[in-house]
């Protein structure tokens, strides 16, 4: 397995070197290899319908900056950094949603929210539809936050990405990531506390 990985790594390194010399076929091979990763990262932050456009921008940027890639760190990390930066720019261009109130949520959304909030809940979703509702609700809640807050929260608690890695992806210091994470978590937690409280009052 390790031998296979090393072989694959050396193949990728060879394709990168060829692409840096202007070999189109080598660049296309890199696109084929890394597109699933770029799509996966972008889909964490953007609506599905915008992912393909962003992935195109990422690879165009990568093509333009390919000569600057010196092989320090993996090509995948370099590409992920470009993707995250592009996603952050795309989020900055979006207008923030106003705060969500209990009145703006559907009954199904509240059911999912209460289920997720139930103390020590382990079984989260009975049906796939509930997972969809949870995803949409998460997107709604995240849209009320600042782009940097959304980015950090998604990476930290959505992906369980270590602080050091987030710092490298965003080009921030680790302490900045920690401060941003603390504030973002508190903001989202307090928003959810308010929603759950409003719903309890409404049902009484």
């Amino acid at each position: 397995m390790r031998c296979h990985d090393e072989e694959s790594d050396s193949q990728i390194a060879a394709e990168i070197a060829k692409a840096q010399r202007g070999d189109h076929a080598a660049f296309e091979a890199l696109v084929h290899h890394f597109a699933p990763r770029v799509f996966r990262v972008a889909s964490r932050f953007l609506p599905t319908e915008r992912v393909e456009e962003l992935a195109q921008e990422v690879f165009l940027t990568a093509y333009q900056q390919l000569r600057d890639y010196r092989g320090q760190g993996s090509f995948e990390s370099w590409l992920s950094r470009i993707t995250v930066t592009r996603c952050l720019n795309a989020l900055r261009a979006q207008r923030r949603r106003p705060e969500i109130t209990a009145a703006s949520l559907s009954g199904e959304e509240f059911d999912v929210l209460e289920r997720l909030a139930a103390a020590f809940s382990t079984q989260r979703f009975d049906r796939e539809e509930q997972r969809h509702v949870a995803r949409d609700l998460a997107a709604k809640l995240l849209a009320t936050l600042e782009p940097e807050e959304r980015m950090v929260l998604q990476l930290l608690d959505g992906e369980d990405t270590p602080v050091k890695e987030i710092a490298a992806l965003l080009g921030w210091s680790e302490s900045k990531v920690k401060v941003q994470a603390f504030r973002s978590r508190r903001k989202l937690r307090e928003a959810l506390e308010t929603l759950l409280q409003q719903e309890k009052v409404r049902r009484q």
Partner: protein
Amino acid sequence: MNHQHITTWLDSREPGPWTAEELEAVRQASGCHECRRAWEAAQAARALLQARSSVEAGPPAHFAAALMGSIEFPPPLAVRLWRANAPFLYAAAACLALLAVLELREEIAIRTREYSEAAIDAVSLAVVHDFAMGANDDDAINN
């Protein structure tokens, strides 16, 4: 009773699933209304973010081909070098041609002059020769 709320560590914990120690701390704090509310919201927030992360989008089949079609690749190095240096090369070729023409003209002029001089010398020699021969003939007649 002095109670420390769990809100601060809920907001500053390391990423990853809840650990046994964290869950134990939550259990111990569950009697506090504020801590319980904070825990429920934090748990829901984490679960929602995890659900958001479960979205899987992959590239469509045409993605790489469409991307490659949209990139304006620069022409090969030889073509780029030619395009960049063509005016200089044309000018250099014109200069060389001009020099060659000038050289040729000079060569022709020299050759022509040499030929003319040689021709004149031959004519002069013939005249002198004829003159000398003519004088000898006159002497023979007189004798």
